[in-house]
């Protein structure tokens, strides 16, 4: 296994042909990337829809459907020049009107394009002055647009398809190297190659048709099944490698585990600052620093992840370079802090009490979203927290309940991560606009810094974001745990695997050594 590499060191020449079998651990109900924030949809459609721009693993932005672009000083006006040789798989031609139609579609609340719309930001107008020029205007500065545009959620789809009035949720028609042949929720998707494709993303050397004839994604939720399928050669690649098996897999010569560290907000515990006990900063700090988080992560994830050092994972743009995680594992300090906070007594179970009530922290989580591995980590932490007298109660609920609780602030802590290569994600997680949904700490004090950063120059943004990150740690709004990564385990037959920046595999460039 290894960390992010832009493109696998391709062993030998690409072989044409063959259908790649991929088993995914998660499923999506909706395959149209405009309509969902599902990362599975993003993964599958990454090879189906092209975006205006592409982002390399080093976070640099490259041309794709847009050959060039211009951003004004204030980050309020973006002007794109489009390629003129691109066609959608249904034969429609890509032009400015098509792009405008896509964005207008996303911006219309009736279309329920929640996630894609949040990527576009507070757009004032989308204009198509001529066939190859698209202008996106804002009333106030909006810096994160380009990164958002590089994601498949804002990939450009055929306007004829979007206006066809058919069922948009079960199909996606783009200009990508593959077309979506079929999609069945709970089952998977089939992609077939477009022979006339010739406009690959700018950060890759290869721009012609894909090497593979097709890709078949299958949904195999049971990790043992998925693993078995890979080991028995029934599929060539799987994602969500069970951590416990990663080591065994690594020692298997025929199987490679590729890992891409997710940019964005690490898997963190967000502490609800609006109610006891976490309305007391000392309790939060004790909670943040009191246990050996890294040991718990090591034990439950078997060394398959990097531990988090701060509120942004280290390869996110504007991540605080000085964050080193030195706040962790200081039980003595935690005990002092708790004593100071008045949690001095202990009950029969060894849990600290104050005025007779135990120091209980309820962590509400949705098991479906959280997954087995994270649940294990939480249980390990639970066991650790008991040592410093904190009773971490794990309250597993379903998605609906979880969203209701999140909304209502009915929790002491919640755990999640956000994948985004753009530091603006901090505004979602710590800005007052998303209190109750994204902002699990329910803090409002960071708004000035975050709002200014959205439209600021890169230098100013770096300053502002660093300040935010330090405050999140110092005020203990959050307990960052580890950097989630996207793992693809694949047999040696699969070569040329690349990564899209939102930690999704990109199979455009890949091939199977034994071809068809």
């Amino acid at each position, binding site marked *: 296994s290894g960390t992010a590499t832009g493109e696998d060191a391709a062993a030998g020449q690409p072989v044409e042909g063959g259908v790649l079998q991929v088993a995914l651990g998660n499923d999506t109900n909706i395959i149209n990337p405009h309509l969902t924030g599902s990362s599975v949809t993003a993964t599958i459609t990454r090879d189906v829809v092209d975006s205006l721009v592409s982002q390399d693993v080093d976070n640099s932005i490259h041309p794709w459907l847009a050959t060039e672009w211009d951003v004004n000083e204030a980050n309020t006006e973006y002007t794109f020049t489009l390629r003129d040789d691109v066609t959608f798989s249904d034969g429609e031609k890509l032009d400015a009107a098509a792009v405008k139609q896509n964005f207008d579609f996303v911006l219309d609340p009736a279309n329920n394009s*929640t996630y894609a719309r949040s990527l576009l930001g507070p757009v004032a107008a989308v204009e198509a002055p001529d066939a190859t020029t698209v202008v996106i205007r804002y009333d106030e500065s909006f810096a994160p647009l380009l990164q958002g545009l590089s994601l498949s959620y804002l990939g450009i789809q055929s306007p004829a398809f979007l206006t066809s009035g058919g069922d948009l949720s*079960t199909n996606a028609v783009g200009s990508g190297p593959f077309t979506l042949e079929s999609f069945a*929720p709970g089952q998977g998707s089939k992609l077939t190659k477009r022979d006339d494709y010739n406009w690959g993303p700018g950060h890759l050397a290869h721009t012609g048709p894909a090497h593979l004839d097709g890709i078949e994604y299958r949904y195999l939720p049971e990790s043992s099944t998925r693993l*078995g399928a890979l*080991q028995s050669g029934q599929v060539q690649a799987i994602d969500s490698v069970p951590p416990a098996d990663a080591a065994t897999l690594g020692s298997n010569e025929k199987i490679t585990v590729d890992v891409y560290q997710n940019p964005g907000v690490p898997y963190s515990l967000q502490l609800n600052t609006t109610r006891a006990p976490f309305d007391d900063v000392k309790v939060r700090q004790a909670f943040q620093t009191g246990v050996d988080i890294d040991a718990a992560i090591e034990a439950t994830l078997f060394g398959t992840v990097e531990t988090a050092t701060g509120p942004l994972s280290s390869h996110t743009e504007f991540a605080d370079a000085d964050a080193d995680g030195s706040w962790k594992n200081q039980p003595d300090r935690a005990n002092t802090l708790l004593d100071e906070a008045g949690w001095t007594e202990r009950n029969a179970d060894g849990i600290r009490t104050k005025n007779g009530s135990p120091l209980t922290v309820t962590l509400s989580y949705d098991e479906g979203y959280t997954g087995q591995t994270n649940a294990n980590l939480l249980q390990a932490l639970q066991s650790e927290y008991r040592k410093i007298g904190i009773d971490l109660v794990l309250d597993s609920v379903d*998605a*609906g309940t979880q969203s209701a609780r999140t909304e209502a602030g009915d929790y002491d802590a919640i755990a999640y991560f956000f994948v985004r290569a753009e530091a603006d994600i901090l505004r*979602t997680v710590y800005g007052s606009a*998303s209190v109750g949904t994204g902002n699990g700490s329910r803090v409002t004090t960071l708004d000035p810094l975050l709002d200014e950063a959205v439209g600021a120059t890169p230098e100013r943004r770096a300053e502002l974001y660093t300040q935010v990150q330090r405050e999140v740690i110092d005020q203990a709004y959050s307990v960052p745990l580890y950097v989630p990564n996207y793992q693809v385990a694949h047999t040696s037959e699969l070569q040329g695997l690349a990564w899209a920046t939102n930690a999704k595999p990109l199979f455009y460039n890949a091939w199977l050594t034994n071809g068809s």
Partner: protein
Amino acid sequence: MLRQVGRRLLELVLVLWGAATITFIAVKSIPGDPVAIISGGENIVDAEQRAVVTAAYGLDQPLIVQYLRYLGRAFTGDIGESYAFRSPVVEVIGEAIVPTLQLALTGFVLAILIATVTALLTSGARPGVRFLASGTELVLLSTPVYWIGIILLLVFSFWLGWFPVVGADGPGSLVLPALALSLPLAAIISQVMRDGIEHALDQPFALTVRSRGVGEIGLRVRHALRHSLLAVSTIAGTMLGGVLTGSILTETVFGRPGIGQITLLGISSRDMPLILGLVVLSALLYSLINLVIDLGYALIDPRIRDGVPA
């Protein structure tokens, strides 16, 4: 005859209505925010979006209005659009039911086959054989079905590599899930069947048949088996109803698409229209199966055809 059909239909409507009502109440009392689900689960929904969605799905209406509207639409055959899939429920279910039916029917037929063979071979057999058979059946009945599935996978797919595990295409991929589904079922059916066969063999007519010079095999196949089918069809009918949703577990283990998957998803995401659709589907199936059982009885037993107590 016509009155019979009419009464059955009325009963069916009643059951459907009751089931839909219970589900409506249940789903409405599941805590959580349907708007968040409709908007894609993990996403952040702003106020504007929320208002649009709430209005579009009628969630701002009083519950009773929502209920009546739902019933009214359901009556015209429109059971709405799934929140999670954003497609018409009928389509979502229609798509999911194909693999489930494949699995359930294959599993069911397999179960009947296995059960018939074991029951025929072990009925009235030596105590040792019987003990082995009924012991195996008991163990199969008492082991969680998903565990059976996992073990089957492990042995036949991963170790021996006989059957593919993945997905839902090709008959090969159906073998193991169908087997996993069928084993506990076969265990029950074969118990009932063996019991029925032995019961039939105990009856005076069996001796008469023997006295005509018919051999054991002929007696079992031509006479006793058919008698045992009466008991079997009762239990198998209720089982078949269970198999369709009972495939949730099997589908999960084998990563198969189907009704089970969308049921889980529907419930975890409070997808009201979908759940209602699924409940209506199973109520329909239940009634249909009951009808088929009744017809089956009549087919097997001429006494029932004539309305004479057996």
